[in-house]
C-alpha cells in the first residue's frame, strides 16, 4: 500500500504536471513547486477523493492569513501528509 506521501506526490505530479522526482517531503507546495491557489484546488479534490476526507482549506487559509499558523505547517508536503493522516484517523475513529 502506498504511503500518504507517495499518494500525494503522485497526485501533485499528475495534476500539476510537475516531474515526480522534484517532489520531496520537504517541498513547499507553493514556494518550491509553484502551485497557485486555483491549481491547489485540483490537488485538494484529488486528495479528498483518494483519502475520503475533506481538507479544511478555508480554515487553513484563514489561519495563515491571520498569522496564527505559518503556511509551512500546511503546505510543506510532510506536514500536509501528517494533516491528511490525522483527518483519516479522525474519520475512522
Amino acid at each position, binding site marked *: 500500500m502506498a504511503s500518504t506521501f507517495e499518494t500525494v506526490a503522485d497526485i501533485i505530479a499528475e495534476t500539476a504536471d510537475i516531474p515526480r522526482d522534484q517532489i520531496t517531503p520537504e517541498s513547499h507546495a507553493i514556494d518550491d513547486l509553484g502551485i497557485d491557489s*486555483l491549481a491547489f*484546488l*485540483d490537488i485538494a*479534490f484529488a486528495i479528498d477523493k483518494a483519502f475520503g476526507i475533506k481538507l479544511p482549506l*478555508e480554515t487553513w*487559509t484563514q489561519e495563515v492569513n491571520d498569522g496564527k499558523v505559518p503556511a509551512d505547517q500546511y503546505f510543506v508536503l510532510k506536514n500536509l501528509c501528517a494533516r491528511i493522516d490525522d483527518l483519516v484517523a479522525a474519520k475512522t475513529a
Partner: protein
Amino acid sequence: MRLEYFQMIDRVVAFDEAAARLEAHSTVPEDSPVFEGHFPGHPLMPGVLLTETMAQASGYLILGLCRFSHMPFLCGVEKAKFRTFVGPGAPLAITATRIHEGSGYAVTKARIASGGKAICDAELMFRTMPFPEGLGARMREQAASLGLEVEDVQNDA
C-alpha cells in the same frame, strides 16, 4: 437565453436540495450576432457557450445549496464532451448535480439535452468565495427571476 448578455438560463424548473441537483430550461435564440460569425450562413451554438450554460446551471445549484452564503466562480472544466450540433431555436434541458463539496470549492457534473438527445456534458469545478460587496443581492434577485428562491443565510446587501 440572451447570448450577448451571457444570460444562458431561461428558467430553473427544479431544485432538489437533498439530491444536490438542479434542472433548468433554455431556448437557443433564433437570432444573435454570435451566429454571424459562428458560422456565416450556418448558425451553430458555440461549445464555449454551451459550457457557460452548464456552468451557470451549476452555479445556481451551488448558490441554492449554500443558500447564497458564497459565490461560485468557475475555475475548471474537465471531461467536456460535445456530442452533437445545436442550432437556433433548439430547446435545451440542462441538469447539474454536485458530485463533491470541498472546503472552498465544489465540483459538479452537468449535461445538456435537446429533445431527449444528449448535447454535451462536463465536470466543472468552482471556487466558492464570500460575495464581493453588493453581488449577493444581485445574484439572489437574478436567481429569483429565474425561479430559484431559497432562504439565504446571510445578507450582504
